[in-house]
């Protein structure tokens, strides 16, 4: 398989976009978006990460099996997060309750 050479222009464009993304993340963090703050932050981060994977890491030009590995890694991470949260978010009492005996040990 012949390798694909990504031109420096694309690298610079990606770098510029990443910088912009970083800037936007910080700006967004200073706005009160309620529940959406974390969503926006993660969306921008995921966009940036995708660019790095596709262009800096050449995943876009890599064999299918490489792309499969990337998809698997993300998918398995999603399994872990989603199924664990499926327990935490559906509990009748969220959050933890500290026992007094525990609180004692804290004040030591």
């Amino acid at each position, binding site marked *: 398989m012949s390798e694909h050479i990504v031109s420096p222009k694309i690298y610079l464009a990606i770098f510029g976009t990443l910088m912009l993304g970083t800037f936007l993340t910080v700006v967004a963090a200073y706005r009160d978006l309620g529940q959406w703050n974390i969503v926006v932050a993660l969306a921008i981060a995921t966009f940036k990460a995708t660019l790095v994977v596709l262009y800096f890491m050449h995943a876009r030009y890599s064999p299918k099996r490489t792309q499969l590995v990337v998809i698997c890694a993300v998918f398995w991470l999603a399994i872990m997060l989603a199924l664990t949260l499926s327990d935490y978010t559906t509990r009748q009492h969220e959050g*933890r*309750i500290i*026992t*007094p*005996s525990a609180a004692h040990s804290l004040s030591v």
Partner: protein
Amino acid sequence: MQSQLPLYPEQASNFAPHVDALMIFIIAVCLFFAVAVTAAVVIFFFKYQRKHPDEVGVPIHGDMRLETAWMVVPLVLALAMFGWGAVVYVDFRNTPQETLDIYVIGKQWMWKLQQPNGMREINELHVPVGRNIRLIMASEDVIHDFFVPAFRVKMDVVPGHYNTMWFRPTKAGRYHFFCAQYCGTNHAVMGGWVTVMEPSDYAAWLSGSSGADANPVVAGEKLFAEKACITCHFSNGTGRAPSLNGVYGGQVGLADGSTVTADESYIRESILVPNAKIVRGYQPVMPTFQGQLTEEQIMALTAYIKSLQSQPVPATGAGVLPAAAGKK
């Protein structure tokens, strides 16, 4: 007594017949498949034993119909097992309204249990037959697990969490209970006996004990005054904090617009982390009682607040929903 080699433990609670029936169903299904596969394997193994050293088997590569059949049929049976099991489990996790509440505290390596009237027991539990019993369980150190084989019930007792479980004893007698979650050196001896008594015997047993001064409601009432809860939580709802009359079991409207059911965990949280959930119309002024109350004192306070249930509900203050009450 049972024979030297019993196959199942005694059935002494409402869950036992259900669990045993489920067991028999799954055994039947599994036995069918086990026998079928074993028979096939054994018959083929003998019937097709090699006759000549250079003999070769008949090449058969597969059969879509068979493959489909033995994926679909087990799947259907598996889903039946899932469904039936789910019914029993959901029943177990959803406690009925009317219960006799017993507080259970697990610690390395003993069980402390407390009857509704405050009577304390260690590694012994007395309950009346025919009543719904709810165990409200907390741990002082590691994870334990309260397990009564004759009742077919079990629940982990996790530090930092309140877990509850319920059952209805159906047969008087004495039954083992165990700690089922490994908890350190003397895990194996962290157990005792549940004594199921006729209601009259239970009442006699209770009154025969000198539990009055340790009645958690009485103790809780005393604490309520001692800890100055009473200076804000006026019973008529005019204080800086909501009235607690009838709060237990109802819906409470919160400052952020949501509502929450006032149960043990909510009351406990409100004592330890008062500002986590602020009742609508009130200010977050209550100090935390974290580190100032023992586990038993919290249970006493909880019991007292629950006892306010029966008293007449006063004029509703701000933030208290109809047919419910606020807190703090």
